[in-house]
């Protein structure tokens, strides 16, 4: 049952939902926003009806947060029009957005950690130069809001002492205290436990019933289905589709979100898996904020096979990769390479992993995999700088390093062909090839690859895919993580689906349909229920 497949670059279709202008709380017309070379929002149209919960779904980087920051006045659009209650408004700063009754709960809370809840609520909405009166009024108002919306908090508690769920309540209370009629929530459940998330949905329902308009930004389909009335899908900076939630399905939304990319079929023979090279047992990993993102994951990868981990971004894949490769300390569990446990703790864990034969192509090449201010040849040895190939003893044989870099530039067709150029001057695809060449040419037993073709041009994608297949056929164990379902399906010999920090299912790429995978990725597949 394939419906409404839209491919990249096609003009988006904003379905008329039969809304008269007077019903609309918010209307966005042809919004554009660029950050340097990145076109974050392209001609976005959006209509939000008053008194509804309107979901906006899309993968990370689809442009949802940017769009809402424009509506909230934190960024200013390059072009386009914002209408609030039918009137065109130039929202140049957050203060004005608040005045128009638009409040926002940011993904990363805008709270002052060492302030009390009361102080956070009052900040920026004080009545007079002295705080006393404002605090008294806010205290009374919090009691009223707590009664009306069942949003109880202890006004005197300090933010850093309360749970994440409570912090989010404070954000909602802040917006309500400022008289918000339209409430934007940006990925509100990303940091919540399931129970806290359910509580949030209850609150959102109450708010809607009291006449508030809610815009919910998320990449989680379960939330969309559970709480929204309408849903708009964004992909790669564009608005794809707006639907009535009751008339759509998670499968359809998953397809719209991921989109169908230009089909890149990879020619590959059957896999001939050998011994188990990489095994991960009961791995638990926390993120920088201390939230557990990988919740007891076990799997193994054998020589000569590619195991793909599918999943919507933000379900623990990043932390899994960083932990297995030694970049991030694990809270529990073991990682074994050819049966030998790897010691990965400490800030040089990645070095020991490499020594043991585990190479890593990171998800975010600019932030982790490269030092963009360095010349190409320097990045071509990053992480391997103590290799004998680059000289004896303490000294670095620069000529050897540059010669090797030149060889790889030729072999991997990296352009421009100048190893003395600053890495920032290479395109995304060529930067990725620099990283791939470095990690593959070392002949590792295990290769971990995250988002191999993110931000890479079509021509390079095929090359990169073929290189990965070649590694497999050379008898290496490859762990592939990608949010591109198509990529996972065409490259993997086995697919594991990750949802909410756990592996919720395994699929055979030859037989599994996109719908089956999509359901598992959304956490509503048959195996996810277990």
């Amino acid at each position: 049952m394939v419906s409404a497949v839209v491919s990249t670059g096609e003009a988006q279709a904003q379905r008329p939902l039969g809304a008269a202008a007077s019903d609309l709380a918010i209307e966005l017309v042809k919004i554009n926003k660029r950050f340097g070379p990145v076109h974050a929002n392209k001609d976005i149209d959006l209509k939000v009806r008053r008194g509804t919960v309107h979901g906006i779904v899309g993968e990370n980087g689809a442009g949802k947060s940017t769009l809402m920051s424009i509506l909230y006045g934190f960024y200013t659009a390059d072009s386009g029009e914002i209408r609030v209650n039918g009137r065109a408004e130039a929202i140049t700063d957050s203060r004005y957005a608040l005045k128009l009754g638009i409040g926002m709960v940011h993904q990363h809370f805008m709270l002052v950690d060492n302030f009390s809840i009361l102080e956070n609520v009052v900040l920026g909405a004080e009545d007079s130069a002295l705080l006393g009166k404002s605090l008294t009024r806010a205290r009374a108002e919090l009691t009223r809001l707590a009664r009306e919306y069942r949003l109880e908090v202890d006004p005197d508690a300090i933010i850093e002492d309360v749970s994440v769920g409570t912090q989010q309540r404070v954000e909602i209370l802040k917006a309500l205290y400022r008289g918000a009629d339209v409430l934007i929530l940006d990925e509100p459940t990303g940091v919540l436990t399931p129970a806290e998330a359910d509580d949030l949905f209850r609150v959102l329902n109450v708010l809607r019933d009291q006449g508030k308009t809610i815009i919910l930004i998320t990449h989680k389909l379960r939330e969309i289905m559970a709480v929204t009335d309408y849903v708009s899908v964004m992909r790669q900076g564009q608005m794809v589709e707006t639907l009535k939630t009751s008339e759509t399905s998670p499968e359809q939304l998953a397809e719209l979100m991921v989109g169908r990319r230009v089909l890149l079929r990879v020619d590959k023979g059957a896999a001939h898996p050998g011994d188990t090279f990489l095994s991960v047992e009961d791995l638990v990993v926390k993120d920088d904020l201390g939230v557990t993102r990988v919740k007891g994951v076990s799997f193994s990868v054998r020589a000569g096979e590619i195991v793909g981990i599918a999943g919507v971004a933000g379900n623990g894949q990043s932390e899994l990769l960083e932990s297995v490769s030694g970049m991030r300390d694990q809270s529990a569990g073991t990682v074994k390479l050819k049966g030998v446990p790897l010691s990965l703790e400490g800030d040089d864990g990645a070095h020991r992993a490499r020594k043991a034969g585990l190479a890593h192509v990171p998800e975010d090449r600019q932030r982790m995999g490269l030092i963009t201010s360095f010349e190409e040849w320097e990045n071509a040895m990053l992480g391997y700088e103590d290799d004998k190939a680059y000289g004896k003893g303490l000294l670095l044989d620069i000529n050897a390093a540059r010669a090797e870099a030149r060889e790889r530039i030729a072999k991997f067709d990296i352009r421009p062909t100048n190893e003395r150029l600053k890495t920032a001057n290479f395109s995304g695809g060529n930067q990725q090839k620099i990283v791939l060449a470095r990690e593959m040419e070392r002949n590792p037993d295990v290769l971990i690859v995250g988002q191999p073709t993110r931000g890479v041009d079509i021509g390079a994608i095929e090359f990169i895919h073929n290189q990965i297949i070649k590694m497999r056929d050379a008898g290496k164990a490859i762990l592939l993580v990608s949010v591109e379902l198509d990529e996972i399906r065409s490259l993997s010999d086995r697919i594991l689906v990750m949802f909410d920090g756990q592996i919720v299912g395994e699929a055979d790429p030859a037989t599994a349909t996109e719908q089956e995978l999509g359901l598992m990725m959304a956490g509503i597949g048959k195996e996810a229920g277990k």
Partner: protein
Amino acid sequence: MDMVVILSTLDATIRLSTPLLLACLAGMYSERAGVFDIGLEGKMLMAAFAAAATASVTGSVWAGLAAGLGISLMTALLQGAAAITLKGNQLIAGTAINMLAVGLTTFLGIQWFAQGGRTPQLKEGERFTEVKLPFADELANVPVVGPIYSDLISGHNILVYIAFLAVPVTWFVLFRTRFGLRLRAVGENPKAVDTAGISVIAMRYQAVLITGLLCGFAGAFFSIAQGSGFGNNMTAGKGFIALAALIFAKWKPVPAMFTCLLFGFLDALQIRLQGVEVGGVQVPVQAIQALPYVLTVILLAGFIGKAVGPKAGGVAYSKER
């Protein structure tokens, strides 16, 4: 020890704590707003010179004070322009200010007054003198309370009282006013302030200017209150002790007062112990001198408690992602 020695040591403690306290509170405003200031020393030195030079030339202590405050404010503004508007390195800006102060005050001093960098000895009316509080004489003979009131509390110059008055005022401003709430928020999470529709830049400039003002008082204290004229580099690292006190007090006004009193007491003690032998051993006064710095290092390293400064400190605010 008899009462007189104790009283005179405590009296010296108050005097020696005063510039520390003013500078420490000065640093509190800008650091609470997220601008690290290692240029307290420089601003004090500039103010000390400007105050003494102006007082000497005009014959008015008040003109001197005004000049000290004015110069310190201008220096703070320069530092603010570098650290806030131009988003420069706050630490390097502070270092430059310190060096500029050392160079400029000596250079101008030599040129203007031709006394090797000293300003002329200030006369009556050109410097702040002791203020006798009401009933100081009447109460002097009352046992215990009398000497404490009339010797210890009464009889300081006005800047001492301003410094100690600045403690409750700072507490009130920081914790009981809208301005203080926003100032503290800017130093912890500027983005939260920005999304609440308040200008981060404007808040930081206001904070830096208050820092300049208080440094101005501290500098004036050296040259036209405690001393009677400016001498080369007369602040002698007190700006850095104030910085240490600020960290030690964990950026809080009342603890800042007690820390400055403690550091002032250590200073008074080491002066009193110069050359004194206890049990045949010369007391190493340098150990007492170094104690504020040692304590601060130990505290910062988390060996006794933990000093965590304002979270957004040291970084210029930029909205771009």
